């Protein structure tokens, strides 16, 4: 019969034509899909997305703490990026740098959830000498990076910092933490950077549902840009 061939591994209902486009305008129809496969034009699927923005902090009133509360438990790892100037000296004068002091959940004051950290860093003084530090604290990680205020005519007020928590949904494992930061208090000698690892070294805690970034007893600038990202290891 005309139009019928033996040995074909696929067929469609209705008139047969070679597809002319490489992707469908909407959801694939089964006939479109079979035609594309047969024509060797099936669009290769891309790898799944691994990262999504969870929240960008809304900062007002120059708070001491920036808090991400009620963190969804739908990712594998967390990543926080901090950019822009993040310290404000309330009197509007003086020479000040401020460190970032993070903790998980409500550990600050709880006194039972031990943190440990090790880092290499090149600031603050003398600016050209590298240092290392290893420490521990019951309540928080002491300082993952410095920032400047904007009153002293510093050349730079952007101090990019990143902070990551691995396996934050796991309730009964130690949590590994990664951080990296710059300090650009030029023209002062408070110029350098640091990189290190930290951990919440107990297995009795719950999953991480909250992260607090304290500005070392000082104040966050309202223009600071702090974003919480969620990473899905296998992608979505």
């Amino acid at each position, binding site marked *: 019969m005309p139009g019928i061939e033996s040995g074909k591994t696929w067929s469609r209902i209705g008139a047969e034509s070679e597809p002319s486009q490489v992707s469908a305008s909407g959801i694939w129809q089964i006939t479109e899909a079979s035609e594309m496969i047969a024509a060797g034009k099936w669009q290769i699927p891309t790898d799944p997305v691994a990262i999504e923005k969870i929240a960008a902090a809304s900062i007002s009133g120059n708070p001491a703490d920036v808090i991400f509360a009620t963190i969804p438990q739908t990712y594998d790892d967390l990543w926080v990026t901090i950019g822009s100037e993040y310290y404000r000296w309330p009197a509007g004068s003086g020479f000040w740098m401020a460190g970032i002091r993070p903790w998980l959940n409500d550990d600050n004051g709880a006194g039972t959830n031990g943190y*440990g950290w090790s880092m290499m860093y090149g600031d603050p003084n003398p600016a050209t000498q590298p240092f290392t530090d290893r420490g521990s604290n019951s309540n928080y990680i002491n300082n993952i990076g410095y920032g400047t205020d904007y009153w002293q005519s510093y050349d730079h007020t952007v101090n990019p910092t990143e902070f990551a928590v691995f396996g934050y949904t*796991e309730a*009964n494992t130690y949590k590994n933490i990664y951080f990296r930061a710059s300090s650009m208090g030029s023209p002062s000698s408070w110029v350098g950077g640091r990189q290190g690892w930290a951990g919440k070294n107990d297995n009795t805690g719950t999953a991480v549902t909250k992260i607090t970034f304290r500005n070392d007893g000082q104040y966050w600038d309202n223009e600071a840009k702090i974003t919480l990202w969620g990473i899905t290891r296998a992608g979505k």
Partner: protein
Amino acid sequence: MSDFRTLAYTQLASDTASIVFGGLDVTPYSVLEIHAELKTDRASNTWDAFTLTPSSGIGVTSGDGGTANTAVAYSSGNSYPGAIWANALGNAQNAIVGICAGNSMSGLADRSGMPARILVFNPVKELKSTERDITVYAESTGGYGSTIGESAYDQDVYRTVNNWPGRTDASITSLTFASYYSANFLTGSWVAIYGYYGGD
């Protein structure tokens, strides 16, 4: 649409000597980023080291593109406070990339491993390039803090750069992680391979 995408991920359900990712299509990616938490049954120490072997690129000792090189820097937080250490490891083809947890580390059963972040540059064959080095930049740790710091060699903050030249080598199609001391990666260890997507 995010351009930070997942190429492969595994979390070990049983102890294994090596973790192999095969069938990778790295063509759309300019850089691969790898996150991992690894622990091994190396019983003689709190830490182990691991190697990363790509399917192409590391077999070159000289000539086309030059000689493979590896360098390492690590901070000392205990015995030698205030010191940064560095070594040039020469042209080892299968060099140490990172540090992971060994069997005698404190709280090992409660850990998914010691963490590492790794960047792999130039995973794709470049036909028109006069130079193409597969370069691996890795940050890892053998322990941190006052109670679990890596005390044997004080490699608390460990950074390596491995450089494998060879412009005509094929694109990477597989990556293999292995214990440097021939131990086994323990159940629960995981590795995720991400890529910076640059398009088809």
